[in-house]
């Protein structure tokens, strides 16, 4: 017997699926149904577009970074998600999911956060719609992203510190899911990336695809054609898939940049596509960092938002099929790019986004002069200023 939802259980090749305790399966069925109905409903799109435009400030600019272009010997455009309200791409998704939560009649939101940007974006929509909001955050991330903790509290959310594991995003995700299990009747789990069980990878991708759709309109207007390369950092993979997805059928190169941490050879990194293997984490099958017994290995990245031992299943699929290319840069390279963009363009990037910048800067000279490269500047770096200062 296969039910309707099972036939569409969100597979990307051998990746994806729904590997969660039975207690959550009813809620996932409900979410799949609510999402499919909403996505087919013009009213839902109208409402979402309203908030994207008048509340978040979309569309975000596509900006020709001239001095960075000179440095790299090519044309580099920045997709300015740092100018989205709350300072990162994360709000695109939280606006979509909060409207769904309202449709489902769930008055309470729980979320995990690493860099705190998704936590802030969730606290923001919680405030906007008057919903109780609880954000799980690892103690190490609370330490290194203190500014975002203040912001969440100001917005009226409660932060639940997570001590287990290394006190980072993986551990926060475990606790958020456990909270959801206990309160599933009245709570929507607002996942922040394209990970987790179906429908999250598909749904979050669809909400983030506004990034790529805008680039698809802006680039021909400003440059006269589609870009040659799209470059974005990959933590769970939401800003990157949001940029890539509308271009999957075009002749455009897609490059995802993972965090190499202290170097892939040290084992201290957050690059499951480069150095992981097939497995299950947080409800879906993907490429993950694990030992031979399937125990999850702690990740490391200077960027809290990349510090995660898994990646969205669709990226694992695009990696395997060869449609997208995945590379990695170290903490050190990312920190250098953080500094460079600040001084070259007057834009302080999030450490996560600095990984995408670092790869392009490293490749300087290898590009054609007329090539058009779009980098997703997924967020602004205010949150990282204190941590970077302590590291320099």
């Amino acid at each position, binding site marked *: *017997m296969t*039910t309707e939802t*099972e036939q569409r*259980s969100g597979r990307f090749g051998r990746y994806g*699926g*729904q*590997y*969660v*305790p*039975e*207690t*959550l*399966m*009813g*809620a996932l*069925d409900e979410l799949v149904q609510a999402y499919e109905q909403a996505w087919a409903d013009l009213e839902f799109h109208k409402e979402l577009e309203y908030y994207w435009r008048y509340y978040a400030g979309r569309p975000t600019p596509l900006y020709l970074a001239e001095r960075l272009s000179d440095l790299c010997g090519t044309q580099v455009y920045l997709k300015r998600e740092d100018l989205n309200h709350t300072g990162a791409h994360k709000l695109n998704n939280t606006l979509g999911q909060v409207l769904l939560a309202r449709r489902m009649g769930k008055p309470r939101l729980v979320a995990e956060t690493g860099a705190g940007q998704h936590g802030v974006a969730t606290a923001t929509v919680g405030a906007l719609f008057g919903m109780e909001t609880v954000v799980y955050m690892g103690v190490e991330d609370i330490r290194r992203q203190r500014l975002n903790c203040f912001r969440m509290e100001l917005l009226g959310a409660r932060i639940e510190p997570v001590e*287990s*594991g290394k006190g980072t995003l*993986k551990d926060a995700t*475990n606790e958020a*899911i*456990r909270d959801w*299990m*206990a*309160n*599933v*009747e009245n709570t929507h789990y607002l996942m922040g990336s394209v990970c987790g069980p179906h429908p999250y990878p598909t749904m979050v991708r669809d909400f983030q695809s506004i990034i790529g759709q805008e680039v698809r309109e802006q680039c021909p207007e400003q440059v006269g054609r589609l870009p040659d390369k799209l470059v974005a950092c990959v933590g769970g993979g939401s800003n990157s898939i949001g940029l890539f997805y509308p271009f999957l059928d075009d002749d455009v190169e897609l490059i995802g940049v993972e965090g190499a941490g202290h170097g892939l050879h040290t084992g201290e990194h957050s690059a499951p596509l480069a150095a992981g293997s*097939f*497995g*299950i*984490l*947080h*409800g879906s099958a993907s490429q993950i960092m*694990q030992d*031979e*017994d*399937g*125990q*999850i290995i702690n990740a490391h990245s200077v960027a809290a938002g990349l510090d995660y031992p898994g990646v969205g299943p669709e990226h694992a699929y695009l990696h395997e099929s060869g449609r997208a290319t995945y590379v990695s840069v170290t903490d050190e390279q990312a920190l250098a790019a953080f500094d460079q963009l600040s001084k070259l363009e007057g834009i302080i990037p999030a450490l996560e986004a600095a990984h995408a910048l670092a790869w392009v800067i490293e490749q300087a000279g290898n590009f054609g002069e007329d090539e058009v490269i779009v980098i997703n500047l997924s967020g602004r770096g205010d949150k990282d200023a204190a941590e970077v200062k302590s590291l320099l």
Partner: protein
Amino acid sequence: MNSIQQTFASNRPAGRGVLVVYVTAGDPSLEETVEIVTTVADSGADIIELGIPYSDPLADGPTIQGASQRALEAGATIQGVFDCAAQIRERTSIPLVIMTCYNPILQFGPETFVQEASKVGIDGILASDLPPSEAEQWCAVAAEYELSTVFLVAPTTPPQRVARAVECTTGFVYAVARPGVTGARDELPEDLKDSVARIRQVTDLPIAVGFGISTPQQVAAVCEIADGAIVGSAVVDIIAEASNHEARLQQVSRFVSALAAATRQ
């Protein structure tokens, strides 16, 4: 009839509930687990759930998370747990059900895992994050090696999924007492009787209730409405808190005896 169903069947005429006790293998060490499980069996438990520790168990509360962490730090591996099970099997014939998450099984190789389990005398397997809708191949492999399957049914499980779960189950149906994670609780949920009745309507398989069952009184109450009660965190807590090996076995024995007596009330 497999050994798990037999256990339920032989308790039924006397009106006795089946006591299932969960122990995390490797906490505090695999050597001690052999003795702890033997003690649990000798003290009147009917079925043992042997947990293979996993780094990120979504369905578990702080008690079992802590036990898993300690076991992994003490060096427990999947092969180590199988070796431990083989030693337990030399000492007792009590049915053993492996409980773990699916990723360790996947990395060991589902077929190799089931083969090895069957070789060391394991009777059944439960993967707490493998819902029946993802378990088609898993069930086929388990059937090939005559291992019983156990699946969870929660109060939140929609009717068509309850039907699917009982179709996939060959051991017993694990009725999750309440939404949320494992961990000792003071009270039984009010709607427990209805949750069990909902499953009973669609199957004759044995039904045991777990998640939060932690006292003899609760075991007695659960055995009134279901075929068995599963106690985990309360035993794991005793194992964790005892000051030494002898005290641990003594306290476990006393507690399990009280739980077992409660199944006869």
